């Protein structure tokens, strides 16, 4: 940033171009930025640099209240268009500093002991926070169809056999007999299960184990609760 050397015509030209569409160096009120640049200009700009001259005359009218203008006064190189090289401090054009900036290097190559300790502490906090989270129990409502061998099968006994299956996370609900055809009826029974503990495979295996009564079993409906 900067205007270059404001005591030269080139610097004043930069200032003029910068102020073409602005009333002040920074913002919309006179500030310490204007004071800093004003003091760097040696005298009124020539008439052909009309924007710089307008600004100069305007800031000159604030001469008495210069110290009380808002803002913090910075070095001259901090103001102005960013494309212009700052030549305010050096003055020597021959000295070419080879500023080889390592963009990817960290300021502190060796990780300090304290930083390491802090990092581990934070990781521990994160783990404990994550573990505390209460797990939500996943449940499902299942409607099962249990089919008998024929119309002479004792459906009451069949239902007793099905309800005799007990497991942690399994609760039997209501049931009814649904006519299938030719006098045969199937048992339709509801149950609620915890997904982690009871599965449909397990239920099918246990229900079809009653070979005297059960011909087959189907899942009529499966709903997450």
């Amino acid at each position, binding site marked *: 940033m900067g205007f270059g050397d404001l005591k030269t015509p080139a610097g004043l030209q930069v200032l003029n171009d910068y102020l073409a*569409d602005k*009333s002040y160096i920074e913002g*919309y009120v006179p500030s310490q930025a204007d004071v800093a640049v004003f003091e760097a200009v040696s005298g009124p700009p020539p008439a052909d640099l009309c924007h710089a001259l307008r600004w100069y*005359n305007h800031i000159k009218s604030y001469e008495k209240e210069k110290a009380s203008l808002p803002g913090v006064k910075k070095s001259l190189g901090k103001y102005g268009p960013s494309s212009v090289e700052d030549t305010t401090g050096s003055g020597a054009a021959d000295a070419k500093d080879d500023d080889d900036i390592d963009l990817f290097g960290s300021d502190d190559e060796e990780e300090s002991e304290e930083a390491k300790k802090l990092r581990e502490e934070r990781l521990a906090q994160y783990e404990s926070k994550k573990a505390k989270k209460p797990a939500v129990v996943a449940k499902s409502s299942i409607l099962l169809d249990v089919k008998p061998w024929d119309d002479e099968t004792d459906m009451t006994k069949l239902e007793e056999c099905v309800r005799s299956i007990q497991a942690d996370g399994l609760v039997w609900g209501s049931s009814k007999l649904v006519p299938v055809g030719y006098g045969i009826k199937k048992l339709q029974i509801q149950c609620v299960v915890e997904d982690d503990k009871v599965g449909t495979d397990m239920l099918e295996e246990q229900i079809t184990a009653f070979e005297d009564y059960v011909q087959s079993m189907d899942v009529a409906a499966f709903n997450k609760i």
Partner: protein
Amino acid sequence: MAAAAELRLLEKSLGLKPGNKYSAQGERQIPVLQTNNGPSLMGLSTIATHLVKQASKEHLLGSTAEEKAMVQQWLEFRVTRVDGHSSKEDTQTLLKDLNSYLEDKVYLAGHNITLADILLYYGLHRFIVDLTVQEKEKYLNVSRWFCHIQHYPDIRQHLSSIVFIKNRLYANSH
């Protein structure tokens, strides 16, 4: 913008309480303010000047005799040339003249904002809002001044904020 609406904007920017009753009179809808005591006031400049004095902000009318005269001249300019325009060519002439005048000035009169800047901002808003980017760059000094005035927090209020962006695609005419 209707004169009454503009005068209400001015009241608000001056910090006055609303409550004045405005009416319009004649073919050109001259604003009229009915005061509590004394005769009613007619005309934008007259009412605006009255409001400024009522708000005890006489610095807006100029600090020196020359500045006061210039403020009055710009108020007259506002009523006759800005409000009295009728065609696109008139608008362009207006902006061209204003651009020349503002080349070496931050404000219209003196080194501080005055009533002239405020009323001209209100009057020109409907023209500036329709300018293209090229036109804004063509009238660079008007754009700079307008952008400056619209950043005063109390003045713009509900009027739309106009974007002024310097576009490198269009070469400056200078």
